[in-house]
């Protein structure tokens, strides 16, 4: 077995906080993407951030049941989704709404889930994007199986799955890394190390130098990357996708980032982290540094900026409008997708509910009961 590529001592970085291109050690082996790519990453991040601000507001107004924000993690989310071909597949978690948005899934279809309409609403096959999975690390195995099937069928599809730092502690994360390496599946694992699993800091999650050191134990290339540097994330992920496509097997990429918002709207971060810590991370903002870089290089003109903001505002407006309409849901659909063909017992139960709904006294929810 050839000695696997080990994660670097310091996270790989191509553009620093001051918006300057990084030369030397931390950038070795990687080229800055062209301005057009950086500009599109920037656009997607700005639009995404505006979108999230809108969604967070809607959640506060009670329009959504819950929402896990990725504020501050835009570089990881947008890079991962942008590096994939439209023919590739994304296997996301509840955290990764922005990645889906970048992938082209309509905001209203994504948010329908968080509003509580159904467990998901978009068509996975249409968008080549799996449902946003909640049971931690379980989707990583689906991604490995999906990628392996592509390989068996001789297709060039690559799968990319996102997971958090906390999720790496689950047995399924290990099984996914191991199956992927043994089967040399065309898959990329992107770990968003945002410092916390709800309230639990990374120090209580692992004793490793960095999470990506795990890659060595699977004979898999591992990369430790500045997760707030979209240029670095995009470049490292793109390389990994190409390697996978060429039959080079899986790659583990750790993006070091930070969750600026609370875990979900119902969380209270003051119980487990200091304002100072969060403040410190404002200095590493992923959009800010790209803004500086693109402005310096002249790629980001006032016209483009205006256009981006227009796109962002339009999306925010459309999202507001979509979420302010109460969806019309049919409770009887609860029985329609459990099996390919409805069973006699489910038909009986469906008829029971239909009769109940037809009756004058509406069923009052157990939640209210």
């Amino acid at each position, binding site marked *: 077995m050839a000695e696997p590529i080990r994660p670097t001592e310091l996270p790989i970085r191509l553009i620093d906080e001051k918006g300057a291109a990084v030369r030397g050690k931390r950038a070795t082996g990687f080229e800055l993407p062209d301005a057009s790519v950086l500009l599109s990453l920037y656009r997607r991040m700005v639009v995404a951030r505006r979108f999230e601000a809108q969604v967070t507001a809607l959640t506060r107004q009670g329009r959504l*049941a819950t929402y896990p924000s990725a504020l501050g993690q835009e570089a990881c989310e947008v890079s991962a989704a942008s590096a994939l071909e439209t023919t590739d597949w994304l296997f996301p978690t509840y955290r990764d709404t922005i990645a889906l948005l970048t992938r082209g899934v309509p905001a209203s279809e994504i948010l329908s889930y*968080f509003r509580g309409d159904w467990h998901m609403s978009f068509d996975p096959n249409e968008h080549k994007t799996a449902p946003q999975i909640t049971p931690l690390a379980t989707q990583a195995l689906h991604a490995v199986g999906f990628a392996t099937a592509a390989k068996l069928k001789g297709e060039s599809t690559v799968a990319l799955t996102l997971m958090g730092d906390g999720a790496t502690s689950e047995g399924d994360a290990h099984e996914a890394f191991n199956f992927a390496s043994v089967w040399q599946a065309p898959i990329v694992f992107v770990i968003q190390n945002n410092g916390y699993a709800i309230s639990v800091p990374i120090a209580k999650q692992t004793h490793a130098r960095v999470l990506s050191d795990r890659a060595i134990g699977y004979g898999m290339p591992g990369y430790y990357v500045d997760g707030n540097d979209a240029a670095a994330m995009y470049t490292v992920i793109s390389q990994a996708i190409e390697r996978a496509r060429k039959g080079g097997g899986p790659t583990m990429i750790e993006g070091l980032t930070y969750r600026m918002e609370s875990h979900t709207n119902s969380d*209270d971060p003051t119980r487990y982290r200091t304002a100072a810590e969060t403040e410190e991370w404002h200095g590493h903002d992923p959009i800010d540094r790209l803004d500086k870089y693109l402005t310096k290089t002249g790629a980001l003109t006032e016209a483009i900026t205006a256009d981006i903001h227009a796109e962002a505002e339009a999306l925010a407006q459309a999202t507001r409008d979509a979420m302010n309409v109460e969806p019309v849901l049919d409770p009887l659909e609860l029985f329609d997708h459990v099996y390919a063909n409805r069973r006699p017992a489910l038909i009986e139960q469906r008829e029971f509910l239909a009769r109940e709904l037809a009756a004058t006294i509406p069923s009052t929810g157990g939640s209210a009961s």
Partner: protein
Amino acid sequence: MTMTEHRQAAATTRTPYTMAAALTAALRDAMTEDRTVVIFGEDVGPLGGVFRVTDGLSKEFGESRIWDSPLAESGIVGTAIGMAMNGLRPVVEMQFDAFSYPAFEQITSHVAKMRNRTKGRVQLPLVIRIPYAGGIGGVEHHSDSSEAYWTHTPGLTVVSPSNPADAYSMLREAIASDDPVIFLEPKSRYWLRDELALPIATAPMTRAQVLREGTDVTLLAYGPTVKTAMQSAELASVEGLDIEVIDLRSLSPFDDETVSASVRKTSRAAIIHEASQFGGYGAEVAARVTERNFFYLAAPILRITGFDIPFPSPKLEEYNLPTAERVLAALDSWEW
């Protein structure tokens, strides 16, 4: 007046406790009285748990008594087994029913079997707390009812409190037990309030309680559906139907004595639970109560339960959860 209330009446100064607060008090008192009681799991430390049941305990008892573990349920239960083998009494939390599934092998193959395997030489005094069932508008995986999986597994004791007094008393008893206990905390009732004077000892954890006496029907419930059963009884009384409500409290073991006595009196029974019906806990209740009391029954035992579908999304869960209206409609289906 229920028996629980009777006991409370005996006590002196009362203060209001939500079920969550009563559980916190039980954990605090157990940790104070017994240094071998330790708590760990996901977010149970400084955060106090996503439902705040361990609120304040980490400040009070420190890292060596209560701490946040890595995020892995099999690891949490598996290491709890080892700690119990080494003289501790771990109380661990699975954040939601569905997140206890990764620990399924450790629970069924070890927690449930270690005492039997070792002929009683190794016992596992541990408690697995699970914020249980639905009714809080949770997204997928946050509203499952897992009791049928545990109650079918010999070696486990499975209980669920329906009110703050029982929450305190039963959790204390579970922690003191030398057998492993699956402790199901009805999420939708965490904020239910009662005036309590703690510490309080209600009936033994393994016994059912008659919460309301009646002559016409025996209505069986546990955890979140007890409130639904009481509402049903009130509604029914208007229609002149006198319902006896029994809070099972203990799912495994099942209190045949209390339930059979009631059913032989009323000759009719129904069981309410949120879990889907097929192979649900209500099936065992209906089967065993019928076996033991067939010739006293005037009608089949009814099951008012969730449908045989995956638990619905927040906006649709109300159509799946059993309601007082459904209970009455079910009772009307009997030929009287």
